[in-house]
């Protein structure tokens, strides 16, 4: 089942994979950045959590992209 999924997503070569990965990156940065920004506003304005959230978002979206397209 998992193979079929990966197969569908990779069907038309690299361009759609690229769009998927861009979507993941955008989603990761937005959601974890927003959570970090919220914590910053709650605790006081020092922006450390915002930076941490963005980094975490990039990391998790790359991990997700690897799960979807890189893993065998």
């Amino acid at each position: 089942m998992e193979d079929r999924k990966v197969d569908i997503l990779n069907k038309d070569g690299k361009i759609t994979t690229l769009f998927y990965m861009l979507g993941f990156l955008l989603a990761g940065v937005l959601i974890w950045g927003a959570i970090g920004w919220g914590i910053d506003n709650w605790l006081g304005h020092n922006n450390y959590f915002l930076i941490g959230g963005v980094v975490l978002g990039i990391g998790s979206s790359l991990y997700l992209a690897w799960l979807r397209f890189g893993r065998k």
Partner: protein
Amino acid sequence: MAQPGFEPPGSGDFIFTPIFGNSILATKPVLLLFFSVILISVFFIASSRKAAVVPSKLQFAGESIYSFVRDGIGKDVIGHEFQRFVPFLFTIFTFILTNNLFGIIPFMQFPTMSHIGFPVSITIFVYLVYHYVAIKKHGLGKYLKDMCFMPGIPKPMYVLLAPLEFLTYFAIRPLTLAMRLFGNMFAGHLLLMLFTLGGEYLLGSAWVIKIFSAISFSLAIGLSFFEMGIQCLQAYIFTLLAALYIAGALADEH
């Protein structure tokens, strides 16, 4: 300044006043939209009305567009259930393609899709279709569970990945789908306007500078052909991604 300088085109050039009356429905983009619907209908009715085993040139043209969408996008991407989505995909493809191509056809010269409202409304249909298909096939609970919780990864990772997947499906996908089409058409039209208006402006200068006007005009013509490629490509990509989202909704396991 002694002379008024060149005024570059901007987003203000995308705002049209109504051609007749006061209604917003009588502006150029809306009229082009209606015209495209008539054009597409007439073309495909004419090409399929006298269908024969040995096709005429018109029938051949209509059938090759149809089979391109059916086999190249529908069958290849969606798989065995593709047949019921072909009308939807075909409509999207021809509609976007025609409206994009208006951008380089003389006297029309405005891609309808460079107004954000039009891509957004098509995207709303795609959004409703792929969620509806998935919920009907899997049920809402299983759909959300499959979407957010991918099997075979360590449990703590779900905290990181579940919100990300959720946002991808419900916000990022429609957003990027609409923005990609809008942005490409907007930028392309702006580029063509820049070189055309620039050439026109340079024409009013001293004769040495008129040479550069010729360069500007020929660039505008060259870029028009380049734009034609982009316009076809964007219509294709929009339809391809719509098909991919439907295929993802139909897949047994997320």
